[in-house]
């Protein structure tokens, strides 16, 4: 490797080392968390509340084909898998900016397209969940990812969904593998005398396996929602679970149940979410096959085929 790069990496390592060495001990961290944020409860994995009769698991994926904006085809797929009878609802869609140029007046096309794409994805996941509840009536709906994204990108349909859940008596939970918030870390930073970056770092390796952190109401930071943290497997990574505020009373039961669905050796998310994730995934070879089969060759080559495909095998 280039000497320059080596030196830079070495420098970065020593900075991080210093920071890490300064991290307070696990005991100190736990004390601070219990003082300021909420109770740490240890649960036994392997329990299911009686009211959980069936579950609906929701995830989505997108992939794209094309060269550069606007010559891009976006493929979307969402999946709601219902436990009884392994029933599946697949929703599929395609979005092509080329056929929607009025949405791209003077702003940066790429940014706008990304926003449209994120909205469409979030909507389709919620739509699959709505369809699932209507058709099967699940007692628990599990989303791959937190609720903030749906509130942000699919506000209307998510409100409809929340309303539907209330009527149907379904409880929803969003499982967040990669915690991206930093609200709790900020609150604790000063007391610890150590600059914890974010909530994930705050909890990483601090909770013991099967421990749940019940964050007190006044420390909840997502409006209208209720979030619980846990270490659901042997892996030290913390996982967050989003609930609607109105379902707060059921949160602990549900987290216990989700821990039961999480293999002890896994990285912490329920097995069924992994399965739905891989089923929903639109693979690149699938995209290629669709494009090859349904677009005329001149259209494909002339408009969409990325130049990098034409490179010699380097």
């Amino acid at each position, binding site marked *: 490797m280039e000497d320059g790069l080596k030196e830079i990496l070495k420098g970065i390592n020593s900075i991080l080392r210093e920071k890490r060495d300064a991290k307070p001990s696990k005991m100190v961290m736990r004390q601070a968390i219990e003082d300021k944020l909420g109770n740490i409860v240890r649960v036994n*994995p*392997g329990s*299911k509340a009686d009211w*959980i*009769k*069936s*579950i609906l698991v929701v995830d989505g994926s997108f992939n794209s084909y094309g060269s550069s904006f606007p010559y891009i085809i976006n493929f979307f797929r969402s999946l709601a898998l219902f*436990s*009884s*009878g*392994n029933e599946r609802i697949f929703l599929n869609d395609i979005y092509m900016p080329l056929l929607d140029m009025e949405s791209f007046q003077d702003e940066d096309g790429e940014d706008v397209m990304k926003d449209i794409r994120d909205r469409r994805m979030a909507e389709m996941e919620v739509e699959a969940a709505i369809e699932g509840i209507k058709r099967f009536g699940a007692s*628990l709906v599990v989303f791959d990812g937190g609720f903030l994204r749906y509130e942000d990108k699919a506000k209307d349909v998510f409100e409809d969904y929340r309303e539907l859940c209330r009527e149907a008596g379904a409880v929803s939970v969003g499982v967040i593998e990669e915690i991206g918030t930093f609200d709790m870390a900020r609150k604790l930073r000063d007391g610890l005398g150590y600059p914890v970056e974010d909530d994930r770092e705050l909890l990483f390796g601090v909770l013991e396996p099967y421990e749940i952190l019940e964050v007190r109401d006044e420390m909840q930071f997502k409006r209208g929602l209720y979030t619980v943290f846990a270490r659901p*497997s042997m892996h030290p990574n913390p996982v967050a679970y989003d609930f609607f505020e109105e379902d707060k009373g059921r949160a602990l039961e549900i987290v216990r*149940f989700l821990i*039961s*669905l*999480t*293999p*002890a*050796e*896994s*990285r912490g998310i*329920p*097995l*069924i979410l*992994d*399965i739905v994730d*891989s*089923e929903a995934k639109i693979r690149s070879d699938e995209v290629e096959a669709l494009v090859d089969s349904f677009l005329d060759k001149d259209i494909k080559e002339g408009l969409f085929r990325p130049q990098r495909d034409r490179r010699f095998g380097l």
Partner: protein
Amino acid sequence: MMQVVGSTTEQFIYVASKDRRFNINEILVIEDRVHGDIKGEVVETTSFNRYIPMAGEKNGFVDRNTLEFMRQVGFSIEDESTHIARVRILDMLTSPVEVGSSVRLPAFDEVRELLVKRGPHQGLNIGVILGTEEVSKGMPDELCDIAYLFEKSRGILPQNGVPFIFDYQAMSEYPHIGIFGGSGSGKSFGLRVILEELMKKRVPAIVFDPHFEMEFNNPMDGIPDNFKEDFSRYYEVFTAGRDIGIDFTELTQEDLVNILRASGGSISESMENAIRTLYKRKDTFTTFRDRLIDLSDALDLGKDRILRMMRDGGMAPEEVARFAGYQALIDAYGNAVPYSGTVKAILWRLNNVARENLFQYNIGPILKAIKSRKTCVIRGSSLWVLTVFSSYLIKNLYSRRRRYRDSEFSGEAVEKFPPFVVATDEAHNFAPRSTPSPSKDVIREIAQEGRKYGVFLILATQRPALLDDTVTAQLNTKIIFRTVRSVDIATIKEETDINPDEAARLPYLASGTAFISSAITGRTTAVRVRASKTVSPHAINPFEELERDYTTEDDRLKQLILREMPLYMGNLRSVLERVNEELGMTYTRDEIVETIHDLVASGQARIEKTPLGEMISEVKV
């Protein structure tokens, strides 16, 4: 439902099913829109369940608990199984199979042609074709219950598939059979099954039996009556040097050289020349041996000394005659064989053979048995005796058959001699790849020419890589059992049409399961060899034998002694005599005393002191 999935070629496809597990080697019918119904054979099977992913770096092992809770909310884990089969297309296609084609199991009539080329009475019933369990349900009665199976732990099992019937008559076009497999692979047992079938067809055979296991009069335990067969009239056992041997007067120079070479490991060129020079047609063993002894003595004396002694005179007339004889020998052979060491080395080898009594008998009994269409099991006191004798025997029989066949064209009057089969285990000793062996040349010759004369080889070996490659190349049918050594697998790959999938299975084949690669069937068939109707005399585990035979011996002794009670320790002699007489044994007094103590120790007898000494009486329970 079964369906063609993924990408296909004209030779290989993948078939998937949600509900049906595939069996290896089963035949499937692909209903192709373009090609019509196509047949294919399953060569590899996989099942997976997407709810139970592979444990790996990315996802850890899925514990039962997790699955149990998934079941509790209604997931049916089993329904997510998918079964995949890799299928080799058996028809010749010119374009790939259509993806999405439906696949079904064939009816028996659809695959009859492919699986059963001959009726059960026209061929050898070797076993059951793997993967034909389901298709065999529509089989006609004549194909049922003709090949029972055997499993070590479960005994005799019913036939569970289509029988593999080997068209032995087609050997006239595609001759010779090779049977390969390591120890415990079922190779010897496969050879036995083939020999049983040949006996049933009354095909004359010579079977070399280096392991003393080729007896066909012990029926296999537990076989049904309709499957039993009495072979005792169809075979005879001969032992070289006991009831058969080499007729010295019939030997050629070549034969003699071969025999002597085998008896001593090797011979030098000068020895070979000496043998050729010294051996005369019509020699008997005695005339030949005496000539060697005399020449050796004469060479030891030396020509000059012999001449001097003759000239000096003063010898008795028989002495004169002896020295005259010496002189004549030296005159005749002295130039060709100048050293007595050479002659002595030949003599030593000749005596080796003679010591095995090989020259005291001839092959008359074998000729008689062959002509009455029997199987002749040939044994020898050691492997070298057997190889020496086998080379002589095979050559002799082969030339008889050849002369007879040739005479049919030349019109010469030659004694009739039937076609026959030569079978042996440990064939790499009889026709080794790189070392010389007395029988190699004739086996090679039969391998190449035997078909013309109706002489066929069945060669079994656990080391195909060590078998002469000219011979291997001529084995048109190869029955391959479990093989572990990579050199042997390489040889098999080279010499047969087995595909890489099958080769990969070779080290893991169950005992008694074999791939039969044959020019006669034109493809490789996986077969489970049928139960043999008979077992080898030492199929009994020696440890079981110990329990069975020697425990009873001990028990019988105890019973007899108990019967003699009450008895007195001071008077055991009469007991001893009676016991030995009854059991035909030679127990000593000490052994009887020991047994009495055993009986006392185990509470079956007790000792009492009486005025007549210690009295032993039985304890009745």
